[in-house]
């Protein structure tokens, strides 16, 4: 059952991903992207990461993609730009890069599979003892880790968002 759900989701996600980059109409492309993100969120739920799943829907599907949709609608791409003349070269570079990434992934799997088994026990010990119980919910544990161990990165990320917000306003505003 789990395997069936996973392969179904994976096929749909990959198919929609291809649809996103091949769709002629930019708005259709954005729609496929939304669907893709929703399916990815379902995948997160099957991986018992409910909080990330909800954040995925809330921030990606509900926020970022709406932004894309706005821009696509406002800029109104009536016709797709012509293909670049040297698309062959781009394709070859892309294939090369994809090959490198694939090799990298295989290497990671190859070298880590030898030492698997040890990480789970060690990771479980990382949590504060009173939080290690199974009753702890995913959201609570995530919040705990985020606000203790990763507090400074968290603050940096919020600063980044603030800077991005101001930057976007400065860029988009006609005259300040």
């Amino acid at each position, binding site marked *: 059952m789990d395997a069936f759900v996973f392969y179904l989701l994976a096929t749909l996600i990959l198919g929609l*991903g291809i649809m*996103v*980059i091949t769709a002629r109409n930019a708005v259709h*492309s*954005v729609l496929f*992207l939304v669907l*893709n*993100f929703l399916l*990815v969120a379902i*995948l*997160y739920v099957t*991986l*018992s*990461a409910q*909080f*990330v799943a909800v*954040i*995925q829907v809330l*921030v*990606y599907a509900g*926020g*970022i*993609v709406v*932004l*894309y949709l*706005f*821009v696509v609608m*406002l*800029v109104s*791409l009536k016709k797709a*730009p012509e293909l*670049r003349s040297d698309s062959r070269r781009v394709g070859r570079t892309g294939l090369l890069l994809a090959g490198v990434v694939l090799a990298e992934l295989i290497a990671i799997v190859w070298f880590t599979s030898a030492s698997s088994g040890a*990480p*789970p026990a060690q*990771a*479980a010990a*990382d949590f504060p003892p009173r939080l290690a119980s199974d009753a702890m919910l995913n959201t609570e*544990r*995530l919040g705990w*880790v*985020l606000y203790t161990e*990763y507090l400074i*990165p*968290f603050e940096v*990320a*919020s600063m*980044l*968002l603030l*800077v*991005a*917000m101001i*930057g*976007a*306003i*400065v*860029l*988009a505003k*006609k005259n300040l």
Partner: protein
Amino acid sequence: MSIELILNAVNINLVALSDQLQNLVGQVFVVFIIAVAAAEAAVGLGIIIAFYRNKETVNIDEMSLMRW
């Protein structure tokens, strides 16, 4: 949008590994990645809007001037 797709692929990997290793660090990273993606989308789309206002096109090949 392709960047979002790529980031999503990375996110799936991180969540899957965090589930596999029973380690929440992966999910923490996903949260950061989503935050960065939001920032990047806002700034990127702001640039596109500003460019469209000046040049009436969003074709990347036309963006060859460093200043005007």
